């Protein structure tokens, strides 16, 4: 009876670390209502945290001005897509490293971790353009599709 995509759920929060747990909570509730299993919900909790953390940390909050970030959820038939958008400085996607770089630097695990936990990953960014990261995760394992 319900249309397959009943429309996005949008959340806009101040670019402040304390709100990341709220995004996790909402992600969990949405994924659970879509019948995602516990393992995939655990993955999504990490993914949303990484996405929001990057948007908040790199968002360049100027003195006295608190930026805001947007989180959009698109529930699908058998998947959930999530988009996080910030109006920060953006960056050169070439800067994204891998886990080895991360271990050496003690940071930079975020995007590699997101990529390894989702089925689709899309990054839209560039200097002075803000950043939008969009992921899609299925409620089944890639292998099971074959």
């Amino acid at each position: 009876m319900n249309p397959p995509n009943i429309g996005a759920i949008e959340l806009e929060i101040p670019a402040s670390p304390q709100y990341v747990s709220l995004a996790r909570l909402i992600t969990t509730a949405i994924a659970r209502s879509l019948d995602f299993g516990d393992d995939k919900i655990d993955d999504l909790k990490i993914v949303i945290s990484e996405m929001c953390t990057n948007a908040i940390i790199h968002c360049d909050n100027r003195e006295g001005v608190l930026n805001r970030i947007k989180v959009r959820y698109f529930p699908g038939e058998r998947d959930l897509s999530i988009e996080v958008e910030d109006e920060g400085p953006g960056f050169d996607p070439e800067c994204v490293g891998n886990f080895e770089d991360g271990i050496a630097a003690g940071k930079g695990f975020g995007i590699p971790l997101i990529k390894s936990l989702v089925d689709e990953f899309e990054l839209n960014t560039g200097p002075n353009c803000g950043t939008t990261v969009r992921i899609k995760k299925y409620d089944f394992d890639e292998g099971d599709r074959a």
Partner: protein
Amino acid sequence: MEKQDVDLRIESVKVNDYMVIVLEGEVDVYSAPLLREEITRQVARGEYKLVVDLEKVAFLDSTGLGVLVGGLKRVKPHDGELGIICSQEKMLRIFRITGLDKIFPIFGHVDELKRRQAGE
């Protein structure tokens, strides 16, 4: 939404040679500074054999991992160690994915730590 709402409790206990930093709650960008401070504090006190107990941690992301790697960097110059206590599969998986399971000694239980020490 004040800082006291951080969902992370930290208690450090000495187990033989080791200073075990026991965490309970969630480690993310909001709470990780508390862990960083505790590691710094212990290192400043001369504790270089650190073990972070993640058994009661419900959530850990890359910010937490970064703090652990940072901790390792602090104790290394003192010939120290930074171990992890963790038996939760969901968390071990993250250590495996990132390759950090090869950087940190991982113990399944605090008892393993005691045995290991006794065996040395």
